[in-house]
């Protein structure tokens, strides 16, 4: 089958243009955060940068996981939309570059957002015990390892999917992915876990939770699904995927979003409930601050937007085939994921800069705008370079004729 080249379409041009606008606005906004922030301008800037960095890194990496998972499961239904996820991985090679400001910030001792890099940490009896893990050198080494492994995953999993575009008769690249997707899924599980420990959990260096990696996965996966859904709808609506996407795909993406927003709620509830019930001070520090001083509204909004709304919106069968409802649910999920990350990061920053109240304003939108813009530009770039559909995937015919 012939490739689906939509790189020169108005839709992709618009995506790229909006990407540039968002990036520019985000960059200007971040500069404003720094200059209006006074004494703690740098911490605020770095916190907002981290929010954007984590959101886009997590989602980009999870897009590779989505692709690997489809190969692992030999999924036929998704073979015509799998490339949509793969085209969202453009940020992966730049993760390490984008991490440099976070690393540099760790050495600006008084202004680092990571409390364990402060001089006071050297005498903190709890942080001292973790010094073998929480130290600058090992942190940088770990980030480098994640970045390199993710780059390897990109080259292998997405790379083989792209190689399959060359020929329909020789399915060696696909076979390679069928065979090797599983170890990459394992790599993903471990890297996303430890990366979430390093970037997010260590913002509160006294605190710990064994489920944290699963929590990070759940939020990223449901957000990745929401983005895939939005893109699938947009591309089909503009006529580009008419031949490849059917209502059945909407239905299945809707089911997945439904399932994984419930999964997120399950994991979030498990974490909250077990800590709340046992009421041990070393664990409750995380939630006591986040359920007071105005932060409690974030928690309540999360229950509503990250769980109840998607649940109520997507429960019915027919709704999963209706574009408006599906889009609403996807936007709600993305918004709630953003709120979730703010709720994780910002209260920790309040503690670092000795600020008791809520720390939330226009500033928190700048980092995510910048990174979302970069994400859009790199995605548009991928559409300009390659086919929008894995047309030669040996299972693609199944995607065209299946019923969900």
């Amino acid at each position, binding site marked *: 089958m012939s490739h689906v080249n939509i790189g020169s379409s108005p839709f992709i041009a618009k995506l790229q243009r909006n990407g540039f606008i968002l990036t520019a606005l985000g960059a200007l906004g971040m500069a404003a955060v720094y200059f209006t922030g006074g004494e703690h301008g740098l911490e605020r800037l770095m916190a907002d940068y981290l929010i954007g960095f984590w959101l886009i890194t997590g989602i980009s990496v999870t897009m590779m996981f989505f692709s690997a998972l489809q190969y692992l499961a030999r999924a036929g239904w998704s073979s015509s939309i799998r490339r949509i996820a793969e085209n969202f991985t453009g940020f992966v090679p730049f993760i390490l570059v984008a991490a440099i400001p976070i690393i540099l910030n760790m050495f600006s001792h008084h202004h680092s957002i990571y409390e364990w890099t402060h001089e006071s940490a050297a005498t903190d009896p709890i942080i001292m015990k973790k010094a073998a893990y929480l130290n600058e050198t090992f942190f940088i080494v770990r980030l480098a390892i994640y970045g390199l492994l993710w780059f390897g995953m990109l080259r292998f999993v997405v790379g083989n999917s792209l190689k399959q575009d060359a020929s329909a008769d020789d399915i060696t690249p696909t076979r390679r992915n069928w065979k090797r997707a599983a170890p990459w899924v394992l790599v993903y599980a471990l890297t996303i*876990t430890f990366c979430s*420990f390093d970037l997010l959990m260590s913002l509160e260096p006294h605190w710990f*939770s*064994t489920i944290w990696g699963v929590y990070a996965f759940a939020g990223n996966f449901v957000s990745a699904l929401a983005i895939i859904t939005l893109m699938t709808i947009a591309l089909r609506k503009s006529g580009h995927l008419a031949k490849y996407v059917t209502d059945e795909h909407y239905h299945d993406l809707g089911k997945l979003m439904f399932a994984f927003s419930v999964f997120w709620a399950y994991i979030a509830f498990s974490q909250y409930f*077990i800590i709340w019930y046992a009421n041990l001070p070393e664990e409750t520090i995380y939630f006591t601050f986040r359920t007071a001083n105005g932060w409690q509204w974030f928690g309540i909004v999360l229950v509503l937007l990250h769980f109840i709304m998607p649940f109520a919106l997507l429960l019915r069968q027919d709704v999963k085939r209706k574009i408006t409802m599906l889009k609403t649910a996807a936007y709600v999920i993305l918004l709630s994921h953003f709120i979730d990350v703010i709720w994780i990061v910002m209260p920790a920053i309040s503690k670092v800069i000795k600020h008791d109240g809520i720390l939330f304003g226009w500033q928190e939108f700048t980092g995510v705008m910048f990174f979302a813009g970069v994400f859009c530009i790199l995605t548009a770039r991928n559409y300009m370079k390659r086919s929008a559909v894995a047309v030669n995937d040996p299972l693609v015919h199944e995607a065209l004729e299946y*019923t969900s």
Partner: protein
Amino acid sequence: MMHELEPVREPLVLGNPSMRDVTARIASIVESKISLKYLLTLGFTATMAAWGLFALYYTITTGIGAWGLNNPIGWGWDITNFVFWIGIGHAGTLISAILFLWRQKWRTAINRSAEAMTIFAVICALTMVLSHTGRPWLFYWLLPYPNQMQMWINFRSPLAWDVFAVNTYFTVSALFWFVGLIPDLATLRNYVRSEIAKKIYGVLSLGWTGSTRHWHHYEIAYMILAGISTPLVLSVHSVVSFDFTVGIMPGWHTTIFPPYFVAGAIFSGFAMVMTLLIIAREILDLKQFITLKHLDNMNKIMLATGMMVGYAYGMEFFIAWYSGSDWENWIFQNRLFGDYAWAYWTMVTCNVVSPQVFWFRKLRRNIPLMFVISIFINIGMWFERFTIIATTLHHDFLPASWGYYSPTWVEISIFIGTFGIFLTLFLLFAKFVPVIAIAEIKSILPGAQPAHHHGHDEHAATSSTTSAEVHS
């Protein structure tokens, strides 16, 4: 354009049988004469069950003191066995409900027997949990009912949540299983020769005629029950994990427990399904339906869930160190090197190391090997629960209350007895109920699906035994 994808999409039913062949093949198991071998096996498992019931009788008349429990260790084999059996009961509903929602057609060959195992395993779990209360004749004290004295159960106790979680699970699983059975019971009603059997299957099939209307309602009911069962698969073992986590004992209280327990439950459940199905497919000659492809898929799931369990072990360990909590740290070192290190290493070897062989396709299709590994996993998952319970309890916070626990013959006998109950019920099921969902298997035969493009076989296409094609 289209590829020959023989290795990717293997047929799920071998030998290209017609719909009539399928009915005949599976119903003939029910119709066949009871063999001496079957009776001997049944006698053996029933004796095991009777022996367990005797030990239970001994416990009730003597008191829990008949067991090896002692002061620091108030939970031993009783709760270990309870969690073990409840865990086994998870694969059935996962296969029936979650794989149904995921449209995994290979489930049709194994869902019936896996779900039967679920129900039998939950019965065993209930036996264990009732016996551990000490005075099981007062079991109704666990239920909240209006009474003159205004005495209510403690709703804040996870043990009370267990009562609701397990009973709900049992009820819904049994209903789901029975609803799925109705068309097949009707098939048997039409098939068997004995008048009495006809009557019994007739009553049980609730007047099923196979009309389109019946199928339509059946599909809706099945879908709704699958939807209700899916969260139950996750909730039951999560609630069981709360028995441990909401306490503040080091080694018990950790946030990953709910998903970790669910993954472990599915892991152990698949192992048990595997063990029994390998035997059943040999003896009942079901190789045509339960193919190597099915076993391969199940091995993959065991590898995946085994890795999830391994991930949880790793997280517990890492965070025990990372937390900086001396208690947590110590309890995990004690697991590795303490009095129960042998149990811990048995668990790791069986659960994390042994399933690694399933990375290789050749080994995933090696029946003797997978049989051995499935038994390893059963053993390992039992030891997982034992490790969690015993290592945390045996060294209490004060060295004065340190102890060691070994079971007495009574506990061992009760455990053997639960296996007796489980196997006896399974044997009865295998003889009197269609072990494979006849109607569902028909729906995946070549030609049964209206949109199917390949391999139209005239024989199958013209056969009109039932309107099974409705089942899509």
